[in-house]
């Protein structure tokens, strides 16, 4: 038996008035309503949120969401993996289903971030860095800025070059009804937006946001129709960025996760036909492309400029607009990426549809590349 995606649900991303448990339940309800009647009674519920208490002002999310869904007897688990929480929750759900203990597993993952001020949310997110980094006032954008600077310098690029990523993702996001930002931007707007942490400007950085996504998983025959999970991979690296044995021009954790996922799926990188990658910071998308093997080291920008990742390109990347357009409610992003890949494989991505892919990949970065996840999905049947 293999694990299949029976249905999915996504909330609109952006500033939301509802509390975190209600957002998680909204996404889950959409997934349940979209499911075939045979799959509607989940036996297990996996809830993901990076920081339910400090960001969302709530705890005991599992039973709260189960109660909101009128699933009082479902087995509940809460998963956290920093900014890759949504992917991690999905992986746990797949493992529960594939264990044979549960036939139907509901995964819902999200975050409520806008209840805090930006400085407070920034401080909260910085807790996923090492204690030493946090004690020096490091934040996610500042550590990302240092990594980006090394990457750009080593490959002879400028930050102005990287505007290409934001411009393309925001153009894609203009077709995404759930995205926080649905308007395109120009390179000039990117390069003149206010500085966040040199060299990263506001439009290089994904936004604090609210939102959730949910997936209902079932077990199915390997040759069955629908969208199936072909491969999962997780990779870890040292938490302390400065202590890593190689220069920070890429993420070892992504390379490890990709290798594991490709191996489990029994495919190579050339068989991937659509990808959603973690563009929390615009230069990271170039790094992701290289770590996933889609192009060589330092080749991400040329690959992008050649249009290879465009919706009409050989391998559409972030046709949903990615985190830069969708917003980055940290617990939601990973599962939203998987849901967007699922919709591409089904041919149900609406104006975001990029060809007729049969194999898709989602990649999520946890923390500053300390625990990353790669998920490969495939479409079965004709």
């Amino acid at each position, binding site marked *: 038996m293999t694990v299949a995606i029976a249905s999915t649900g996504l909330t609109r991303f952006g500033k939301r008035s509802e509390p975190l448990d209600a957002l998680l339940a909204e996404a889950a309800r959409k997934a349940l309503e979209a499911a075939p009647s045979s799959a509607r009674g989940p036996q297990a519920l996996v809830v993901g949120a990076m920081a339910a208490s400090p960001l969302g002002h709530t705890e005991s999310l599992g039973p709260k969401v189960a109660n909101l869904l009128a699933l009082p007897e479902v087995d509940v688990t809460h998963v956290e993996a920093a900014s890759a929480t949504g992917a991690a929750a999905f992986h746990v759900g797949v493992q529960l289903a594939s264990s044979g203990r549960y036939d139907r597993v509901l995964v819902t993952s999200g975050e409520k971030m806008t209840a805090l001020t930006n400085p407070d949310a920034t401080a909260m997110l910085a807790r996923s860095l090492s204690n030493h980094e946090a004690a020096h*006032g*490091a934040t996610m954008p500042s550590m990302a*800025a240092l990594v980006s600077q090394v990457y750009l310098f080593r490959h002879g690029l400028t930050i102005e070059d990287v505007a290409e990523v934001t411009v393309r993702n925001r153009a894609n996001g203009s077709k995404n009804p759930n995205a926080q930002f649905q308007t395109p931007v120009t390179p000039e707007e990117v390069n003149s937006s206010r*500085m966040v942490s040199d060299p990263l400007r506001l439009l290089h950085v994904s936004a604090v946001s609210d939102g959730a996504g949910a997936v209902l998983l079932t077990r199915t025959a390997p040759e069955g129709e629908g969208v199936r999970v072909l491969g999962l991979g997780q990779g870890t690296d040292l938490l302390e960025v400065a*202590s890593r044995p190689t*220069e920070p021009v890429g993420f070892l954790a992504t390379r490890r996760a990709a290798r594991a996922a490709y191996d489990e799926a029994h495919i190579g990188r050339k068989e991937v036909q659509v990808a959603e990658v973690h563009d929390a910071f615009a230069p990271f998308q170039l790094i992701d492309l290289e770590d996933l093997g889609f192009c060589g080291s330092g080749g991400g920008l040329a690959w992008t400029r050649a249009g290879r990742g465009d919706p009409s390109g050989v391998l559409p990347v972030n046709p949903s607009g990615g985190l830069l357009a969708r917003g980055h409610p940290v617990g939601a992003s990973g599962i939203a990426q998987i849901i967007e890949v699922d919709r591409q494989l089904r041919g149900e991505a609406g104006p975001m549809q990029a060809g007729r892919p049969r194999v898709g990949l989602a990649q999520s970065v946890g923390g500053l590349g300390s625990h990353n996840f790669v998920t490969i999905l495939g479409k079965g049947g004709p």
Partner: protein
Amino acid sequence: MITVASCPVCSLTFPPGGAICPRCGGPLTPSPREGNGRVLAATELYAPAAGWASLHRLLLVELEEGGTVLATAHQRLPRPGEVGVVREDVEHRWVWHPAGD
């Protein structure tokens, strides 16, 4: 002068405080360093976390004696490639100073 934690097995360098190497499990030992080094990357943070002043400066510094460390800079933002020295301040934070300072 700063004191890093170094691993005699895999030669990696970490901030002080740990007992075992997170990479290989080797015993971390306190290792004094002169702190001389070259800036690998430097950023000014315009939107610091709550409790930190703007502008906040952060650097990655490659030490002459081996290893890369994270440090702050008080006076100005150095350029990548600039040489200087990392010292510990009264709050046990590592602070970069330009050469000759």
